[in-house]
């Protein structure tokens, strides 16, 4: 397999879907000539023209609402939301409108749209440009939520998203855009299905269940554990909705110990759902309490002296994993 960047993988996925289906188009702010501030979409307007790669005004609620209307009437919009933090601006159109059309109409309407946005702190972008808000949309029935963890995942999940007949929110990790990884050749089309978690490493002592940016942390933590003589299952959740409970539970039933990692704020975040399902459904298999690592419950601080510690990291994950494995967790 060739090696390309996450950013290229996203670009390819969109280009391939635009070529395949003329009803697919894309809009957002500075997506055409500028190719987004992250340059993820560079080149697309040259191939597909400004009728299909469309620069909008700075009107997130408006163009998300319009995407819902377009999706209801025969097209398949991909919406580029420049920062995940701007989700707050579009929640009404996304959650009151897009998410509910199928249900409220008794199945007569559908909204095949993709909202591409991002997550991730540690870029010194401060509180309004660093949030990881996947838990919010995952809470709303009618939306699907995908979180690619590598270039290959980014391509395969995005292509599936475009073909899904439901509104899908896909979060890309901004920190990963330049990361490289193996991706199948364009000829070998790969659609990664929703609702199937991906086991990246196999182990016996502990399960590490992670999303997006935290998959990398989990993988490195697993390596750290190997150095201590332990092995871990590493599971990439891939989609929060639908959630592949089975794969996660099977792993935990095997290992008896688990850490769940996600870059959103910890409280009322994605780790809570996964952890509480495990605690309920794998209760009799657990040898230690289920640990969650989310971001601190603080707005993301700007200062380099403050920011990094607010996000889960490898060292603390390894440390906690060892405590769990060695039975060193205090019994309150």
């Amino acid at each position, binding site marked *: 397999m060739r090696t390309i960047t996450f950013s290229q993988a996203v670009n390819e996925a969109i280009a391939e879907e635009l070529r395949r289906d003329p009803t697919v188009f894309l809009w957002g702010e500075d997506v055409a000539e500028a190719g987004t501030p992250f340059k993820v979409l560079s080149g697309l307007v040259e191939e597909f023209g400004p009728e299909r790669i469309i620069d909008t005004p700075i009107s997130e609620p408006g163009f998300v609402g*319009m995407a819902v*209307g377009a999706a209801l009437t025969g097209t398949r919009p991909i919406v580029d939301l420049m920062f995940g933090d701007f989700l707050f601006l579009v929640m009404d159109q996304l959650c009151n*409108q897009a998410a509910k059309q199928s249900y409220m109409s008794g199945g007569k309407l559908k909204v095949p749209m993709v909202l591409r946005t991002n997550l991730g702190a540690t870029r010194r972008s401060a509180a309004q440009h660093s949030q990881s808000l996947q838990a919010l949309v995952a809470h709303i029935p009618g939306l699907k939520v995908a979180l690619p963890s590598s270039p290959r995942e980014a391509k395969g999940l995005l292509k599936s998203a475009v073909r899904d007949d439901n509104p899908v929110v896909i979060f890309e990790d901004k920190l990963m855009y330049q990361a490289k990884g193996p991706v199948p050749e364009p000829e070998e089309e790969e659609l990664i299905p929703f609702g199937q978690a991906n086991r990246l490493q196999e182990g016996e002592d502990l399960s590490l269940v992670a999303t997006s940016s935290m998959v990398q942390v989990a993988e490195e933590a697993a390596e750290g554990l190997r150095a201590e003589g332990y092995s871990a299952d590493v599971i990439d959740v891939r989609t929060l909705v639908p959630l592949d409970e089975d794969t996660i539970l099977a792993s935990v039933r095997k290992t008896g110990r688990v850490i769940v990692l996600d870059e959103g704020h910890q409280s009322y975040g994605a780790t809570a759902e996964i952890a509480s399902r495990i605690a309920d459904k794998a209760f009799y298999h657990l040898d230690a309490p289920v640990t969650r690592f989310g971001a601190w419950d603080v707005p993301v601080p700007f200062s380099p002296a403050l920011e990094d510690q607010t996000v889960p990291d490898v060292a603390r994950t390894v440390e906690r994993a060892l405590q769990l494995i060695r039975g060193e967790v205090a019994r309150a």
Partner: protein
Amino acid sequence: MTARKTTRKTTKTARKAARKTVDSAGRTPEQLLEAYRQMVRIRAFEDNANELYLQAKMPGLTHMSSGQEASAVGVCEALDERDKITSTHRGHGHCVARGATFRPMFCELLGKEEGYCHGKGGSMHIADQENGNLGANAIVGGSTGIATGAAFSAKYLGTGGVAVCFLGDGALGQGILYEVMNMAALWKLPVIYACENNQYGEYTHIDEMLAGNMLERARAFGIEAEEVDGQDLLAVMAAADRAVARARAGEGATFLALKTYRYFGHHVGDINRSYYRTKEEEEHWKAERDPIPLFGEVLLERGIATAEELTAIGEAISREAEEAVEYALEAPYPPAEAARDHVYAS
């Protein structure tokens, strides 16, 4: 409702107003008669819905559009099967005007399986995909994006279709309207903002909610805007025809300010209204500005129908509505398990 009022003697002013209106662009007598029927259907639908509520047979609340028939019908008569509409919480009129039938509408209001949305939407979310009605919306301003997006895809796909966004005067408070009007103007989208200015948002008069000028707002966003007497069916139809022609010709969006009035309260439970509007005002609109008898007069004067025929129309529609209510009351509910379906399209 209906036929009785139609044949009732309207006052001189009202009659004169009806005569003065712009003529309808080449519509046949039968088309005009059908437009009349549509208004009567709406009135009949609302009267029955209100009755269902008063008899505690209807779950939840609903918002009657009685008094606003001409805007719904006048606009929808300008459309064809390529076109889409989006509607509001006060949406029964739009639904009927766009071609929906009574049975599945009443079934929906009662939460029955045979409703347009299998009972899942109810009054505030009634949609009728086959007739191009993308649905009522319980978020004020919530469908402005949807309609504008539907206009985008009509243009993108080259269907020749037009999208109409019905909205109330209260929706002018919602910022998203200006965002999408801006894009509609920039991209010359075939969309019509049909603002039913019934002068109140819930219990508050528009003067307390709206600074500046409604028409100027649209114009400042590059949108053609026109004020229309929303009680005059022919005037609405003519303005809608112009707007549709502009849209189909690729000339872009139009904002129609349709001045109208709702006869009932904000919702069926809004009975004591004197703290926000006077009985006299209500009486004035009902007696002088009722779109159904106003248009009935036109039909009589033009010899398109006789008083007896109009009465017969009213009576036939009344019976039809009552029959549909009976049907809906008897119709089965969806099975409990249905609550799990349709969260996702598949």
